[in-house]
């Protein structure tokens, strides 16, 4: 693509479309973002509760093993035998005493240390590794890990500050609101592949007002709507965002009157779907966080989930959902979370719309890398807002993105 087309338009209220399609830009994202000084979300403690429990996950395009060791700690390693490059784990999760590569049986402990090599000393006095081969120097490539109250993050860079500094104010506070130190209970996973650029998924959450127009369910039952009391808050980089809101009533007002998707008369045949209870401090009934670069942390009423964004080239990404509750939940609360999970995921009453619209966006953008999108709602500023009739979180996000990418 000509450099002319890679120019960022003047002002921060336009977003060029080549950032969603360009292969070179995508490679740069992998290097500067996913291999750069960022904490990627890689899982929850409750997924790997016991010694030897592991899960396979991804940072950018890098396959990673996250494993609980004998001392209760969490280690992360690149999923690649240092001998000949074979992927060690093929399963998404499991329990092991050690990791052994099937090709030549190089074996590693739960911290990635090389334990042994067959025929290291040769056979019948012949062959084997040279005498100066030091197994201690040939462990798996380890990855920095930091956990906080049940969430696990990893980084491929030595330059990433600690997680608390990285999340900063006010995001750390919102993170701790969900991950408040109580032990988590794993409810299950959902996985989907969406034919769109990975940033469109983050945008979808940061773009608050679409929920009032696209999602009939949200709109009609007031779960997330522009006329609700809401806040949009960002960290200083603009890359993390927390959107919070208080559920509104099913009433006609100057907001709902402008929404074609508002159905004043609609009633659920089984209202248990929206039988919500307050469980967090404060009045907010929904807090959606986007934690740069790959995590959406969702609290919508009583449904809690992490959504891990896994980029798959410039024009596709996977979304790995992990739904959870707390070990202290009683059976009613677990049943409530499982029923409300109907709102979200690859068949979610709300999320179906998002998966579909993201692919449709990509289809519209693909032939037009030289065109640009408009993010002017609410003005041209990048400050926190006390309402959601604004695209401020998108403007702030792309201000941060340009800095990271040197654009």
């Amino acid at each position, binding site marked *: 693509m000509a450099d002319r087309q890679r120019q960022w338009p003047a002002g921060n209220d336009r977003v060029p479309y080549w950032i969603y399609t360009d292969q070179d830009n995508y490679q740069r994202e992998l290097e500067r973002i996913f291999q750069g000084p960022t904490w990627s979300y890689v899982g929850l403690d409750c997924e790997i509760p016991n010694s030897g429990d592991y899960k396979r996950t991804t940072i950018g395009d890098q396959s990673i093993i996250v494993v609980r060791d004998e001392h209760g700690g969490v280690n992360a390693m690149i999923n690649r035998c240092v001998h000949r490059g074979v992927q060690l784990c093929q399963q*998404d*999760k499991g329990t092991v005493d050690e990791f052994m590569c099937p090709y030549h049986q190089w074996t590693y402990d739960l911290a990635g240390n090389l334990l042994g090599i067959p025929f290291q000393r040769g056979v019948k006095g012949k062959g084997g590794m040279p005498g100066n081969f030091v197994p201690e120097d040939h462990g798996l490539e380890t990855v920095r890990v930091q956990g906080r109250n049940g969430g696990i993050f990893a980084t491929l860079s030595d330059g990433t500050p600690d997680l608390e500094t990285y999340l900063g104010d006010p995001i750390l506070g919102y993170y701790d609101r969900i991950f408040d130190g109580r032990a988590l209970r*794993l*409810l*299950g*996973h*959902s*996985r*989907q*592949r*969406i*034919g769109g650029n990975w940033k469109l998924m983050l945008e979808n959450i940061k773009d608050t007002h679409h929920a009032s127009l*696209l999602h*009939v*369910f949200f709109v009609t039952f007031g779960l997330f709507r522009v006329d609700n009391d809401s806040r949009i808050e960002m960290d200083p980089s603009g890359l993390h965002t927390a959107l919070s809101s208080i559920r509104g009533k099913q009433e006609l007002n100057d907001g709902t009157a402008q929404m074609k998707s508002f159905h004043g008369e609609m009633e*659920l*045949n*089984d209202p*248990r*779907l929206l039988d919500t209870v307050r469980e967090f401090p404060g009045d907010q009934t929904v807090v959606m966080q986007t934690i740069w670069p790959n995590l959406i942390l969702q609290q919508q009423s009583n449904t809690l989930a992490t959504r891990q964004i896994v980029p798959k080239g410039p024009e596709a990404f*996977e979304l790995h959902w992990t*739904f959870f509750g707390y070990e202290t939940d009683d059976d009613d609360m*677990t049943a409530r979370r*499982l*029923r409300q*999970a*109907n709102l979200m*995921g*690859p*068949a979610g*009453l709300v*999320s*179906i*719309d998002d*998966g*579909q*619209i993201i*692919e*449709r966006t990509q289809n519209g953008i693909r032939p037009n890398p030289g065109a640009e999108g408009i993010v002017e709602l609410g003005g041209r500023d990048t400050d926190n807002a006390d309402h959601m009739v604004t695209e401020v979180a998108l403007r702030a996000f792309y201000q941060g993105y340009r800095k990271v990418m040197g654009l």
Partner: protein
Amino acid sequence: MSISARQRQEIEEFLIDYAAAIDDGLLDRWPDFFGDPCLYKIVSKENFDSGLPLALLLCDSPGMIRDRCDAFAELNVYGPRAWRHMIGQLRLTEDGDSVRARSNFVIFESLSGEDTHILCAGEYCDVLVRRDGALKFRERICIYDTTMIPNSIVMPI
């Protein structure tokens, strides 16, 4: 006591009718296949095998099935497509006043202007009962093998 040939044929026709109703776009017929009480779930094999309770879609009452039906038919936003269920390998066992049925499914999805792809493949685990002379699902658990759903499941499977 084994299942009679006639009973087997009736169940087979019921399962085919269910799939045809969805494939033919007659979504308003979908709730009629369920009795009261009833349970309809779409569950990943990943969660099922690990004993994790999360469903991709969960309806545990006729009302929830009707709400889901309305959402699929009117509320959700998705592009035009055709679905084609393939079902087979029906296995039946009697269980008191109900019959347990297991069968395999594959669903082909065709979107306008794109190659037909497989939406998901898996197994139905059903509990069938007779109500007022007609067969109904007391339970239909759809366990899908597919590890990565292509975008979304926008209709009942």
